[in-house]
């Protein structure tokens, strides 16, 4: 499982980086969301992969941490997901405004001389 998840993180991260370096704003926004998936999974996996652990305290089990999924990376990633949505929205609106102002969807706000 570990190798599958690591490869998944790598492929999504790599695709995201490729899109980040592209010239069109839409490519960059998709790139950012792919990169965000990769990074969220990466942070989440810092709690290591364990199957069949309880996510919520079961009083009859007691509170031995070994029975439960690691809550800390989850809390971190949960906020990251929501903030990621907010930045995507902000970026989308900025790119729309930039497109309206400059007439192009190039990331620099103007078409390069030759492409």
């Amino acid at each position, binding site marked *: 499982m570990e190798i599958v998840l*690591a490869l998944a993180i790598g492929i999504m991260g790599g695709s995201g980086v490729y899109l980040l370096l592209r010239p069109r704003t839409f490519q960059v926004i998709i790139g950012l969301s792919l990169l965000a998936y990769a990074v969220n999974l990466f942070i989440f996996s810092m709690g290591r992969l364990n199957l069949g652990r309880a996510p919520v305290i079961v009083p009859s089990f007691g509170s031995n941490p070994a029975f439960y999924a690691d809550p800390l990376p989850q809390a971190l990633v949960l906020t990251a997901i929501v*903030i990621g949505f907010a930045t995507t929205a902000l970026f989308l*609106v900025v790119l729309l405004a930039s497109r309206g*102002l400059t007439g192009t969807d190039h990331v620099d706000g103007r078409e390069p001389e030759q492409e």
Partner: protein
Amino acid sequence: MTLLLIILLPFAGSLCAAFLPSNARNAEAWLAGLVALASTLLTASLYPQVSDGGVVRASLPWAPELGLSFSLRLDGFAWLFAMLVAAMGTLVVVYARYYMSPADPVPRFFSFFLAFMGAMLGVVLSGNLIQMTMFWELTSLASFMLIAYWHHRVDARRGARMALTVTAAGGLSLLGGVLLLGHMAGSYDLDIVLDSAAVIRSHPWYPAVLGLIAFGALTKSAQFPFHFWLPHAMAAPTPVSAYLHSATMVKAGVFLLARLWPVLSGTDAWFWIVGGAGLCSLVIGAYLAMFQEDMKGVLAYSTISHLGLITLLLGMNTQLALVAAVFHIVNHAAFKASLFMAAGIVDHETGTRNLKRLSGLYRAMPITATLAFVAAASMAGVPLLNGFLSKEMFFSETVFLQRPDVQRIGLPLAATVAGMFSVAYSLRFIAEVFLGPQATDLPRAPHEPTRWMLLPSALLVLMCLLVGVFPAHTVGPFLKTATTAILGADAPAYSLAMWHGFNLPVLMSFSALAGGILLHVLLRRHPGIRAPLFGRFDGKRAFDLAQTGIMSGSERALRALSSRRLQTQLLLVVGVAVVGALYPALTAGWSWGTRPVLPPHPAFVLMWVIGAACAVAAAWQAKHHRFAALILSGGAGLATSLTFVWFSAPDLALTQLTVEVVTAVLILLGLRWLPRRDERFRLGERVPLSTRVRRARDTLIATAAGLGLAGLAYAILTRPPTDGISPFFVERALPDGGGLNVVNVILVDFRGFDTFGEITVLGIVALTVYALLRRFRPAPESVALPRQQSEQDGADGDSEERLPDPAALLPDGYLMLPAVIVRLLLPLATLVSLFFLLRGHNAPGGGFVGGLVLATAVILQYIVGGTVWVESRLRIHPQYWIALGLLGAGTAGGGAWLAGEPFLSSRSWHGELPLLGEIHLSTVLLFDLGVYMLVVGATVLMLVALAHQSLRSHHRKAMLARGGFV
């Protein structure tokens, strides 16, 4: 308390002054005058407490953990200086009332004037070195604002900028010096620093500290070679020149040198740096003053020279010289401020300050002239006046200073020559302006100013006379108190008297007088002569050259090291990240861990084969097939949220899923405003080679980044987990947080403050999106209805430009059945979202998920029903939801204050209720309710604002006709 009041009053006055109407000259003057007078009287009332060597202290805790407090400290020396600042401030306010013209906006003047006074008092009274540096910089800022008071004048702006650059650079250096000094002494407290003289002088950092502090003091006091800013600061209104640039602010440098004299002086380095700068300024300033054309120019260079005299005295390393320096600080303030006032009066009454044009004003303004005579005589060092006394002390110090060979003779000689220059320029100042034939071509016919304008000057001149004749009975005790405060109990005996008998210093005084008169006569024969030797040396030109050099250099560096192109910048960022991550792997080695891995599950592998294919395909298609890329990236997101389910993170899976939906809708709404696909590529045009090369390069970089991420993830996943803080949360969630869902307890209880910050950011982003869209102007070609929509509208043969009918029972169009279902869905979705919210503390769910579910339900109404139809029935005010959510969360957190606990401490109640049974109530639920409302508001606001853009352009008129809002 009195101490605190002395500083607070001017700042409070400054705030009040800023809000008075711009023509309230009298109100402003009364306010400023009363504030200054009150500060003066308060300071005076403290004299009995310091006169016997006592120290008054006041302190407010500021950051006690760091050993910092806002502390004030008044000893005899600080008292003398504070008195000087406050009393001089009072006099200058009276003068300024009559100097400022009715057209000048006085609130700005008096506001900055009082702010300066507060800052200067802060410098003087600070008991903490860092705090003193802060006030020091405040005086530089106030000086900047006051020099640039007439900001329509280019010389005022340039002068202000130059003064700020030089003095603020000095302030920065001073901060460095003070930090080192505090480190050496073990505290920034002035008392402790002053007690650590031996440690500091023998410390290896001593030269660095001396250099940094001396740079700060010398720039502030306009000492050679940093003196050039002061003449350019004369563009300020004359009251400012009189107050800041002769009496007080420029004295901050010498104040500091005297303040730290007990710990820093006594070494050869001190002698050469401080004494050397002082001697150069003394001679060069006096020399240049002789050749100035502007009355204020003469006074500015003379100020440099006199400050040089004080600096030189401080640099001499003898206690008697220190006494003379303190004495001259007071004397110089008195006669120079009164001369500045005279220059201002002349300027005010005649319209010019040019020595060439002015002449014979004695007849028109005899009182002004008499006052100026006396003050100038004091400046020249004529007997019976205060300037003579301190200058004589200075001469005698130069004579008796124990230095080897050349310095033994050179110093008295240089002092006498400077004295000669000083006599010459004083004489010229008087002779050109007041004596000689009466000038006829002046811009205004001169006459005596109003009595109130003369009063401050007259008081100062009276002081010059009284101190000059009866020094021991007027200034004597105060001087003794001040010097004892610096030197301690072993202060030397000295005698203050008008006449000490005929000795070498007196001889030097008289030869300076005679030489000065001779020099004046010689110079009169060659009118229009420019300063020989120094004509080419120009500090201003050097400053300008340095400034342009730095500017163009940094521009060039920016061009060489950076790029305007985002792609290049991102390439650098990614490159640095890859190399930075690779470096430790290469140097420290790379290995996989030994933790046993889980066997791969076929379904999981299949899921990620699809997920990874989606990600790669999205990257491949994002340029020309945006919709496909969006759906594909959603596929990768789905795989991500299923992974969360797989590894026991239901909260994350829920959030990811709902965010996925909302993001997809958001980007879909945005797609419409992006340009069409480039036609060239559809026609099969070949991609240029340069583009293909770049894509290949980026593919390589992306592959490297991806492999690095995968390798890093695998290397960590195969190592055993470290002991983090997670067990704490698992163990304490139930006993401390009262919840079973640990993730939710962390978010709303343990780390509630983080969540509070996060929802604030979310609210800000939503409002920013809304604000940006209000100004949104789409590109012209995107304004028309998209092809798909117009074809759809036209499919039933109806008109293409039809408008939705808000009164219809169901939304018009092709989605009638979904419309019914979606309407039924709304209450159900609301119920589900509340369910998630309420159970969040004990089971997967919570405010974030609940809020997103409700927002999705609302957005569905819009998607299916259309904006106009939905808003005719359902009005959501997302801004209110954001505000209420933030307020609710804040109130839930602040409620803990009522119980005397810190912000966001949770309170809960657990018990039985009739009918409802066992129940658990907690303020945490209120907090989560705030999160819920804010998430609903922010999400809906962003999406609806974007959706409204389609309405704005072509439906605007129709909407207005129906009275709807756009």
